[in-house]
């Protein structure tokens, strides 16, 4: 029942992705050694977010799957972020 034709991700793409990931890692280490105050967390999280998008899209093949998969991943992330957000209605205003 393998009606879908498989997409083969070339080695080259994957290696390029890894290099970008390593650069982003180096960047986040470097950036957090500087003092940005409260932006520190934000920058670190943005970089981590960028990295995870790369991993999801290329290593986990989301870019090549049916539309349904990325939509589900996005929905789960949205639910998680909403839970976090709603929780902080309590903790931010105690």
């Amino acid at each position, binding site marked *: 029942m393998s009606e879908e034709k498989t997409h083969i991700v070339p080695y080259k793409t994957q290696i390029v992705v890894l290099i970008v990931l390593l650069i982003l890692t180096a960047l986040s280490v470097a950036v957090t050694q500087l003092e940005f105050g409260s932006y520190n967390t934000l920058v670190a999280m943005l970089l981590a977010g960028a990295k995870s998008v790369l991993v999801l899209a*290329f290593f986990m093949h989301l870019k090549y799957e049916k539309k349904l998969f990325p939509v589900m991943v996005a929905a789960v992330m949205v639910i998680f972020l909403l839970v976090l957000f709603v929780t902080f209605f309590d903790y931010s205003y105690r």
Partner: protein
Amino acid sequence: MTIHRDDLGDKFGMWLFIFTELLLFGMLFVVYAVYRSMHPEAFRIAAEELDVALGTINTVLLLISSLTVAMSITAIQKGNKQRALQLLGVTLLIAIIFLVNKYFEWGAKFEYGFYPGSEVLQELGFGTILFFGLYFFMTGIHALHILIGIGLFIYVIVQMKNDKIHQTDYVWLENTGLYWHLVDLIWIFLFPLFYLIH
């Protein structure tokens, strides 16, 4: 019962499982966020106790292992069993090195008395207790996932050697790969939250 094969369905199931894992760790991130918001200063100071170099090495290791798994899928898709096996072997090796690193890292913390319930921590106040509680619990659960991943890789390697996993039926490898990327994804967030943010 007729043999029913649905690779896409299997992958679908794996993704759903990954969602449960994401939310499981997600709730730990909620706990982290709450306590960080309560004790920002203590968390900042406690984070400096962790070894950034060791953390960075582990991050790089996991990223590379993610690449090797992804490449081994490409290899099997191209029918290159030998290369797929080699790449999986590398991944397995990296996973073990990660755990060895973790062992030394934890060992050092225990030596200095930074572990849940220790007297050193009791002296340092709530924020520090919570930081190290979270550190051990979250990296501990993560390490448990690495262990499970090692088991899966061994299984996949054996199956591939026996030609149970091959060019036209490799969903086990794909799903193991997805699992391993999940482990990597979690670490991508654990790393800055514990080691980097001061």
